[in-house]
């Protein structure tokens, strides 16, 4: 499974979701797979994307928000997982792309495995699951309730990336375009049935 497989599967299972992508392969792949769709692309601020997703999820409670984070990114802002566990928005799903490396800076290895799914299970407010294929990822996403009234225990999916390739275009996005496009999309989106 490579990063593009993960993003394509997310978009197949949650076509209306807003993605929050961290700098690196996540932002590159979301750009490619969604054709620069209206998502919250991080072009820097490593370690901040999960907290950004928490803020966005709470601002748009009737929309699904999926944070797509590199494992290096996750580690830099790991404390945000405790914040997610504290406030538990029911519309937030977290996907960590676990390839064991800092892809954006040249693929240097991450010294210690994250075991992020196990950590999420150890916290009272989050649940963790590890997936290693698109079949498992799709089954996991499809089994999750997406109603705004669903119980708030956000799912943290540790997606094992076995095929490391650079996924798509540059992650050095235009911040102004990111803000403009997402705001326009939110303004137009009809209320869900």
């Amino acid at each position, binding site marked *: 499974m490579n990063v593009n497989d993960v993003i394509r599967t997310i978009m197949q299972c949650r076509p209306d979701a807003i993605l929050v992508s961290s700098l690196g392969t996540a932002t590159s792949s979301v750009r490619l797979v969604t054709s620069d769709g209206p998502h919250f692309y991080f072009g820097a601020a490593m370690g901040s994307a999960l*907290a950004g997703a928490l803020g*966005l999820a709470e601002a748009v409670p009737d929309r699904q928000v999926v944070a797509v984070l590199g494992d290096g990114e996750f580690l830099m802002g790991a404390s945000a997982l405790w914040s997610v566990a504290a406030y538990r928005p029911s519309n937030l799903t977290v996907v960590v792309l676990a390839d064991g490396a800092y892809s954006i800076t040249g693929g240097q290895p991450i010294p210690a495995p994250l075991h992020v799914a196990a950590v999420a299970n150890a916290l009272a407010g989050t649940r963790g699951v590890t997936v290693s294929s698109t079949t498992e990822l799709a089954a996991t996403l499809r089994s999750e309730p997406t109603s705004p009234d669903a119980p708030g225990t956000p799912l943290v999916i540790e997606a094992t990336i076995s095929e490391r390739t650079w996924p798509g275009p540059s992650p050095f996005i235009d911040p102004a375009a990111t803000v403009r496009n997402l705001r326009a999309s939110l303004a137009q989106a009809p209320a869900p049935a």
Partner: protein
Amino acid sequence: MTTATKPPTPSPSVPVGLDWQLAIAQELIARGVSVAAYIPDSRLNGVLAALGERDIRLRNLAREEECVAYAAGQRIAEARPVVLMQSSGLGNALNALGSLAVPYRLGIPLIISMRGTLGEKNPSQVPMGRATTAWLGALGIQSFSLRQASEVGPVISGVLDLAFDAGETAAVLLEPELGGGRA
């Protein structure tokens, strides 16, 4: 801009003599702030308590950079957050400010309780307090000192104008002269 000299309505949660904390909360509420992302500080307690009494959502996050990023997520959806922290934690927030709030022009209002300045007794707090205005200025973030309760209305309202209308992240510095300092 509001001209606030009207005394704030008393609150059971705000100690006598710290009416400025209540006045800040009332100005934030009047301007439609809907959520406060913060790291605790004793001088923010009254502000947060008064916000909570009015059912403003309170989010005590783990690090100052989380507060900035949380607010960025709110602002990109055009909600109205405020970030509150102590100046000693500003260093933790610099990357999120410089790499997210400023280049994305998300306009986040910051309320920073000052340490390391007049009356500071802890030597380890002094360097960051001394550098607070310079750190912010180096990122192009304007900061405005609040020293008297009578200035709460125009200063808070003005910073919210800068953030929510002009798209400029801007800071209010709660200076020691306001009171409520540490023993």
